């Protein structure tokens, strides 16, 4: 466990990075696990003949849902209310926290069991609850570990991806006073034993929401450990935290998402449990909190719509070569990886997270992996364009000037020649110098500079030889090995 809790103060990606070394944060195990998951997902997807059609269908359903968000949310509210739930609209994290704190007070809640919810991470709900003396308990195993270690998730689906079994053994030894073990089953049993008591005494359960069906008022939560089932059914109050983008028009559209989500998230055909909640059971209370928290910012930027299609499967994180090497904390906020690099600037502002879209080589592995076909690489360049033009740490008059000069040089052949001659001279000189400053030093720390050829550039060579180039005679004998 190399890192303490990282405060939520916006993305610091590139700042840390420029002083980074070859293996930026030593997350070798995390990278390998992510890569294994990506391969696993790809293999299982390859067995589905209609995988591409499913992705397209999911994309179109989301496209419709996001375009009609206003109507669908109201329809959902009407239908879920008719089933006995209470709906609360929260413009931001503070408002959402306040709703929960009010409930805590009203019902004298002491212990809260939580199943996995990234929205609650956005809200920093646990801090808010602890501040009023309530005790939130994460019950998803990964979240539980991260909470015990007082860290943040490194991954949106597998939050403790960075912890090895031995790390967990030490953690349990330290925090739970359990004898050390690095044996998976044993560790799971320890966690289960500790959690079981909390399920029994909890006064409130909090879950996320994977999909909300407008037509039936159904809430769908998927999971693998059974903890969401217990969190939502054992305590007398069930609070659902839901980002406004989670609504889909109808229950008939659910299966395609379930098929995609399990396979893309963990390489399963279907998650172990799929819960469909239709309002609270008799005598119980169900509260649905609809959270905006920056999501509607995306709607103001038509080119960015797709960022709201995300079903939080984590496939783009696993596929991303940058994420594999930096881990999730490097992204500085709740959502890491390629989708985090796109979404975070929308949610918390380019002024805070403007560097994130640059944390990518634009290799496109994310777009290829995304089950709802979000055009993530193109979203990244779109957000880069915004980041250099709007208030953000990437908006630099100096860099703009550099590119303006570059554009002038490269929009005329004479100027181009001059610029290239200077670049070549620069590289020749750099090869002699023992030490390189700044960006150049960053390049040569681990790589040789390219060789500068002594002969003419192609354009000069062509001028002399181009016209004389004749086809090699096809009858000419080819020297076989």
């Amino acid at each position, binding site marked *: 466990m190399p890192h303490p809790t990282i405060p939520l103060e916006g993305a610091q990606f590139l700042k840390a990075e420029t002083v980074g070394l*070859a293996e930026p944060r030593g997350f070798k195990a995390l990278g390998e696990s992510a890569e294994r998951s990506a391969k696993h997902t790809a293999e299982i997807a390859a067995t589905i003949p209609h995988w591409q059609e499913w992705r397209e269908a999911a994309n179109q359903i989301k496209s419709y849902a996001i375009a009609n968000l206003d109507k669908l949310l109201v329809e959902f509210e009407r239908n879920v209310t008719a089933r006995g739930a209470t709906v609360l609209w929260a413009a931001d994290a503070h408002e959402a926290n306040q709703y929960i704190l009010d409930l805590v007070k009203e019902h004298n809640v002491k212990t809260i069991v939580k199943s996995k919810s990234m929205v609650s991470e956005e809200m920093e709900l646990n801090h808010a609850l602890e501040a009023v003396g309530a005790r939130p308990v994460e019950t998803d195993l990964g979240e539980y570990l991260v909470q015990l270690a007082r860290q943040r998730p490194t991954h949106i689906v597998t939050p403790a991806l960075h912890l090895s079994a031995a790390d967990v053994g030490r953690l349990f030894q330290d925090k739970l006073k359990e004898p050390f073990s690095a044996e998976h089953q044993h560790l799971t049993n320890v966690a289960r034993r500790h959690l079981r008591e909390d399920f029994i005494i909890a006064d409130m359960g909090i879950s996320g929401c994977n999909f909300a069906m407008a037509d039936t008022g159904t809430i769908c939560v998927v999971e693998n450990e059974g903890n969401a089932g217990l969190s939502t059914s054992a305590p007398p109050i069930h609070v659902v935290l839901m980002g406004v983008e989670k609504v889909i028009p109808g229950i008939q559209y659910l299966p395609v998402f379930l098929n995609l989500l399990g396979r893309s998230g963990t390489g399963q055909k279907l998650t172990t449990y799929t819960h469909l909640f239709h309002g609270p059971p008799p005598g119980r209370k169900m509260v649905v909190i609809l959270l905006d928290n920056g999501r509607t910012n995306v709607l103001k930027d038509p080119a960015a719509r797709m960022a709201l299609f995300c079903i939080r499967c984590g496939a783009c994180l696993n596929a991303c070569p940058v994420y594999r090497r930096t881990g999730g904390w490097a992204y500085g906020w709740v959502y890491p990886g390629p989708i985090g690099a796109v979404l975070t600037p929308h949610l918390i502002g380019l002024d805070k997270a403007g560097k994130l879209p640059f944390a990518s080589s634009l290799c496109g*592995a994310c777009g290829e992996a995304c089950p709802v076909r979000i055009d993530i690489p193109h979203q990244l360049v779109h957000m880069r364009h915004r980041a250099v033009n709007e208030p953000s740490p990437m908006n630099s008059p100096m860099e703009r000037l550099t590119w303006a000069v570059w554009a002038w040089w490269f*929009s005329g052949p004479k100027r*181009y020649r001059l610029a290239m001659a200077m670049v070549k001279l620069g590289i020749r000189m750099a090869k002699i110098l023992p030490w390189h400053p700044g960006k150049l030093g960053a390049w040569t720390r681990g790589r040789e*500079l*390219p060789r500068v050829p002594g002969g003419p550039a192609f354009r000069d060579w062509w001028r002399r030889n181009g016209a004389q180039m004749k086809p090699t005679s096809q009858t000419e004998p080819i020297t076989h090995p």
Partner: protein
Amino acid sequence: MTGPQHHSPPHWDYPQYEPGEPVALFIPCYIDQFYPRVAEATARLLIDQGVPVVYPEEQTCCGQPAFNSGYWEESRRVIRHFCDVFAGYRYIVCPSGSCTAMCRVFFAHVDPDERIVGVGRRVFELTEFLVEILGVADTGATFPHKVTMHSGCHGRRELGLLEQPLKLLKNVRGIEYRELPNIEECCGFGGTFSVKMPGTSLAMGQTKAANILKSGADVVCSVDISCLMHVHGILQRDPAMKHIRAMHIAEVLAAKGNGQ
């Protein structure tokens, strides 16, 4: 891989290539200046197929570096120049998957002007042009070496470029083709990415270099020499990898067995 998605394949609705019709070469700036032999091999390959080659001398760059950095307005200026230079050609061939993707896919993002998009759509990557437009399967090359191929991400994911170069490569006489483990992972070059995030870029490149070594090849080739500039820079730093040569695929496909 879960399969291609944003592919922008050659536009089949586009008028067929007429034998004897001249093709314009677009030679990206780094090839023009640092790898002129790659451009020469590109011209050679086309001319050997009986294709008349024109090299518009006013050309400079496709605008990609500024585009990827978010400076679309500056990029647009260079793109407009590109389109002025190449407006008169129906087929433009470029020995780079990445620059071809810039033209064919990303011009439309920067400048939706029909003329700009139209010119961009007429740009073809070299191996794609040879295989899909000319129907070439064998360039008649001889290259008796152990060779592996790095597949540049832009070419593969934006243009669907993988089978075309492999097909030509595997038909080279004397070649011993070696699979590259984990071929789908990015090499970490990414243009300005390599200077904006040098640590991560290097870590990615080192993984790529290690996989190239694992392949057992003596030569690594690619449709993108820019990736190889970065990867070769890393190979050269390691005594165990120093012997591995980096070549553009055009040089391999034009080789006549003299080992060059």
